[in-house]
């Protein structure tokens, strides 16, 4: 076997660091993996013998489960470490966590952490591949990648397409990763939310800013609606959930006024009746469950590519997996 090419480098910390080609490579590699998940035996042996630690220092059932499915379908051995009931919450520093992981000779770490920069911190300190599963308000690259894959499935080439991220942009890692990914693929990007939840200087990212959801709906081909964290109300960023729904909630009545069918994405978990109404979430324009399905495929692609796989061999792996 020749030296693995590592098309993504050692780690996946954020989409800001990736080129358009690298993002396309991940999305293309996800295609054959999508199919594997449709089979009766949903397993390929490409990561057999590899050990992956899922280090979740902040609760997240969805992302962790999605990664676990991806890892198991690639035949990796996985260990979950979460903040409850392990040493990580008992005052152990990130440095010590990193040193311990290094000592255990694992191949990859999937890290979710409440601090911005935590994934990069770990990546700089251990030889294993590090995948960022969300760090503070910084990035959540695999979420954005699955959003991109879902958008591409429905809109085709994203160049010139208009996607608006709606909600708490200030604290959202999903928003940042989406903005970078979409811009790199040539999409036009909008953000919409109360000014209290938009970072000052967001315009300099090269995005369009909408103060009102009506304007965003009129403009967009797709809306990516973020969950409104309830802490934001305690922090005084929004006066009440009711008012948030009144002003920024995406409802059928609002969507009906749009000049075109607007695709609806939501990274979950949803607050029905707050940022999104149920009839929108469950309606014909919603691709929210397809996002979940694509999440596993995209994460398989990321893990596979970091481990040294190439997009071409992913096809072959798929065929081999059939026999296995």
């Amino acid at each position, binding site marked *: 076997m020749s030296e693995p090419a590592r098309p993504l480098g050692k780690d996946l910390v954020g989409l*800001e660091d990736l080129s358009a080609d690298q993002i396309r490579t991940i999305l293309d590699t996800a295609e054959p993996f999508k199919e594997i998940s449709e089979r009766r035996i949903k397993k390929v042996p490409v990561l057999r013998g590899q050990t992956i630690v899922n280090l979740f220092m902040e609760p997240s059932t969805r992302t962790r489960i999605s990664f676990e499915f991806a890892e198991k379908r690639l035949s990796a051995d996985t260990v979950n470490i979460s903040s409850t009931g392990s040493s990580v919450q008992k005052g152990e*520093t*990130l*440095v010590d966590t990193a040193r311990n992981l290094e000592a255990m000779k694992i191949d990859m770490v999937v890290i979710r*952490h409440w*601090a*911005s*920069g*935590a994934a*990069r*911190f770990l990546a700089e300190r251990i030889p294993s591949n590090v995948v960022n599963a969300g*760090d*503070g*308000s*910084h*990035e959540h690259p695999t979420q954005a990648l699955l959003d991109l894959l879902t958008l591409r499935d429905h809109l085709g080439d994203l160049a010139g397409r208009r996607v608006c991220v709606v909600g708490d942009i200030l604290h959202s*890692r999903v928003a*940042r990763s989406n903005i970078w990914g979409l811009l790199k693929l040539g999409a036009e990007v909008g953000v919409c939310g109360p000014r209290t939840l938009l*970072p*000052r*200087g*967001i315009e*300099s*990212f090269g995005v369009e800013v909408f103060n009102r959801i009506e304007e965003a709906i009129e403009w967009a081909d797709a809306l990516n609606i973020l969950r409104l964290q309830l802490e934001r109300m305690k922090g005084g960023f929004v006066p009440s959930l009711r008012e948030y729904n009144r002003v920024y909630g995406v409802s059928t009545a609002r969507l009906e006024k749009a000049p075109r069918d607007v695709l609806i994405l939501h990274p979950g978990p949803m607050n029905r009746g707050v940022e999104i109404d149920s009839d929108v979430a469950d309606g014909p324009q919603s691709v929210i469950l397809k996002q979940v399905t694509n999440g596993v495929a995209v994460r398989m692609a990321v893990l596979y590519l970091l481990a040294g796989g190439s997009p071409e061999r992913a096809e072959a792996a798929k065929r081999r997996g059939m026999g296995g």
Partner: protein
Amino acid sequence: MSQRPMLLKGGRVVDPSQGLDDHVDVLLTEGKVSKIGTALPRPEGTEEVDCAGTVIVPGLIDVHVHLREPGGEHKETIATGARAAAAGGFTAVCAMPNTDPVIDSPATVGFVAAAGREAGSARVYPVGALSIGQKGERLTEIGELVEAGAVAITDDGRPVMDSGLMRLALEYAQAFDIPVADHPEDLGLSRNGVMNEGVVSARLGLAGKPNASEDVHILRDLLVAELTGGHIHIQHVSTRQGIEAIRQAKARGVRVTAEATPHHLLLTDEAVEGYRTDAKMNPPLRSDADRDAVREGFLDGTLDTLATDHAPHHYDEKEQAFDDAPFGIVGLETVVGLILTHLVHTGEMDLSTFVERASVQPARAFRLPGGTLVEGGVADVTVLDLDREWTVDPSLFLSRSRNTPFTGWDLRGGPVRTVVGGRTIWTLAEGSRS
């Protein structure tokens, strides 16, 4: 003081306090500057120091350092901090009171003063807390603190949020002729900020402190100083709007002095890229426009005092996620080289203005001995080699901490000898003598 007299011979003496820039000799006797003149004869038993090719200036003074003792001895002690100061060319430093316990009583002020004397290196002047426990509620016994050796009061580390308390401090302190130093920050506007609010914080997903959080308090301080006639000393100014406000206040006669730090003169929030905790300090590194304004203010004297805000932290405290790492960087052992290299050698600032900002004015602002080489003054002297080339290597610091964003910077110029009370406490060749 019975040490031998010292004759500094053949150097260029730059002392803006007396408009002096000339090749003259300096004789130090019994802790005082006893004579300045051309080709001074060497009295019997005098140590002669060949200063050819070097510059002799009044001892540099840093009015803003954190020496961490008591309570933070793993980061720095008064002794290690005083030796780091000496190695940086400083003959005196003012130690901030935000220790554990807080320096808010005559006993704790006395402790800092005594530990400073015991260290036998750079002079250590205690700064007392403005409020008891730095809680921002009630004034300390300012008169008693001054009696015990405090040269100023401040709640630095945190701002004085209650404007009424700031008024009382500025009024009450006038009887003792000391400045009231303030760390200007509106905590409501900075919230949980860990860096400058701007494009970089937006990208990194870190909470920002806007310029306004500093500006609001600078304006408040200036207005209350104007109201009371008290002397406000504004610490580590980092914003363009704050500098403009100070400039205008000075023009209308408000009693205000203000600091510029080397890091706000030289760096911007870009230094935080990669979540570098050695670029995390409070106030934070700001935009290009702010950095330019700090420089302009430092050149025109709006920011009249160079201060490092030397803030040592143990390496594993900084080796953390950015949100978790403490604010602050060390500064004593790099500032002279940084300013000489990036402001003096570039022609932006002349040497005598540098000495004005780093010695003459700090002494004046805090009413300290020194800041001059006039005959009869204290024999606190710094000898500089303007051309020696060196690279910042934190492993060589005498400070107990290494948290600097300037690691690896190539610098030109630095101290070669530090003399306190007529006694050499540090030389480049031999290191610390205490």
